[in-house]
């Protein structure tokens, strides 16, 4: 579903992504982990072209998303099929929760407002926030904002969801509610790529773990193998550093 082939990216002289070759298959949950500065966020942001790549190819559902020949309409269509959840939620503060969710279906797909509202309410119900439909983002806790952000992304009915450190900006007691929503999505068979430091989530939910450092994917493994017998020395060090505290 998401395939990286020889993907390379530089920030000036800094080589941010090096020869990335990997694939997220349909229905698979991939957790990308690694130390900070390893290129995880950059990697996930290239999938919907919030970051451009320098060379290589990135296929989403067979479409070359980073191709220079993509018209902006094609790119927008592709992006609307990739749900993206940010670390900082990025809800639209001037819109109510309901309007945050219905904006895109109504404006992009021309969905009828009433239909969009109905679907939005169903989504809010799914993330456990049906009673917050008329609230504004400023009235919600971080965990609630992030759950609305997930509902907003789901409103476009994307076949795949990307999560860029969705719980890193949250207070510890709110992490669980967001992870529970993500778990539910995974159980429903959603294709997911998650950058996260939540190793418990990786262990329980992921089908595969990608370990990154210095712009490379050093190891891909099932969570059992990765957590019990990591192959790469850097991965071993990373895991023992995690366990140290």
């Amino acid at each position, binding site marked *: 579903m998401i395939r990286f082939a020889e993907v390379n990216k530089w920030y000036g002289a800094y080589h941010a992504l090096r020869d990335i070759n990997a694939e997220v298959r349909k229905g698979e949950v991939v957790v990308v982990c690694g130390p900070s500065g390893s290129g995880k966020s950059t990697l996930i942001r290239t999938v*919907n072209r*919030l970051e451009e790549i320098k060379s290589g190819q990135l296929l989403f559902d067979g479409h070359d998303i980073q191709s220079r020949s993509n018209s*902006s*309409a094609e790119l*927008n*269509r*592709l*992006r*609307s*099929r*990739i749900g*993206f959840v*940010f670390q*900082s*939620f*990025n*809800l*639209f*503060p*001037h819109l*109510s929760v309901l309007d945050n969710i219905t*904006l*895109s279906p109504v*404006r*992009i797909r021309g969905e009828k407002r009433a239909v969009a509202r109905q679907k939005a309410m169903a989504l809010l119900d799914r993330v456990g926030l049906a*009673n*917050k439909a*008329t*609230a*504004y*983002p*400023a*009235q*919600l*806790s*971080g965990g*609630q*904002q992030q759950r609305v*952000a997930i509902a*907003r*992304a789901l409103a*476009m009915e994307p076949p795949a969801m990307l999560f860029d450190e969705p719980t890193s*900006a949250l207070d510890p007691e709110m992490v669980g509610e967001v992870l529970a929503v993500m778990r539910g999505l995974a159980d429903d068979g959603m294709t997911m790529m998650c950058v996260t430091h939540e190793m418990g989530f990786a262990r329980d939910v992921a089908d595969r773990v990608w370990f990154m450092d210095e712009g490379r994917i050093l190891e891909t493994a099932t969570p059992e193998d990765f957590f019990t017998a990591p192959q790469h020395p850097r991965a071993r060090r990373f895991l023992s550093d995690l366990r140290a505290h």
Partner: protein
Amino acid sequence: MLDIAHILRDNWLLLLIGQYPYGPLGGIAATLILSVLGISLAFPLSVALALARLSPWAWLRWPVTGLVYGLRGVPLLLIILWTYFLLPVLIGQTVSGFTTMICTLVVYEACYLSEVVRAGIQALPKGQSEAARSLGHGYVRSLRYVILPQALYNMLPSMLSQFITTIQDTTLGYVINVQELTFAANQINNQLLTQPFQVFFILAVTYFVVCFTLTSLAHLLERRVARRRLGGVAALAPEIVDGVVMPAIRSEVP
């Protein structure tokens, strides 16, 4: 004090509407029409200028940047005089002082306002446009539904202060015989000859009252929008830190 009352009693109509209906509309009415027309035409132009200055295309960015810098570097009075004397030569027909004043005000205020708009757009966290784009909104849609509503709202205070400035700038129309409030006051002064202090005191107070009323209205409007955004809860303004809308303290409301 009595002098002032007398002057007001004899000339209130002139101060209010000028010589209308026996001559062109003047006084406060003309001042307000000039300002409102000026700013309401300048506003869309300023958004266009700001977008041009932020555009990725150099051929669009550079001329507009030049225009904005140029006009902001020259006193308004000079631009009024230039327009007044040059425009008729260029288009080959006379242009009234009022029209000249409107055109000049629109272009000049638009340049100033465009910097406010540009700052308002650039001050929004990058995550807002990223979120819009990642949902599949194109450039135009993300501007229209996500960026501009927030930027323009945040700019409201600056825009209103620009409007107040515009009201004050209309006094310069006096030099090209635009019959606005200052012109009317000067007419009165020329009639009375002996009471310039009283006349110009009235003028100053009138400007103050008009501007102060508008500023107060503006604040009322701001508070109302802020309240609506909080869903009618408390007068707690949402705090935005690093692009994250911070949770309000009283969050347990429906």
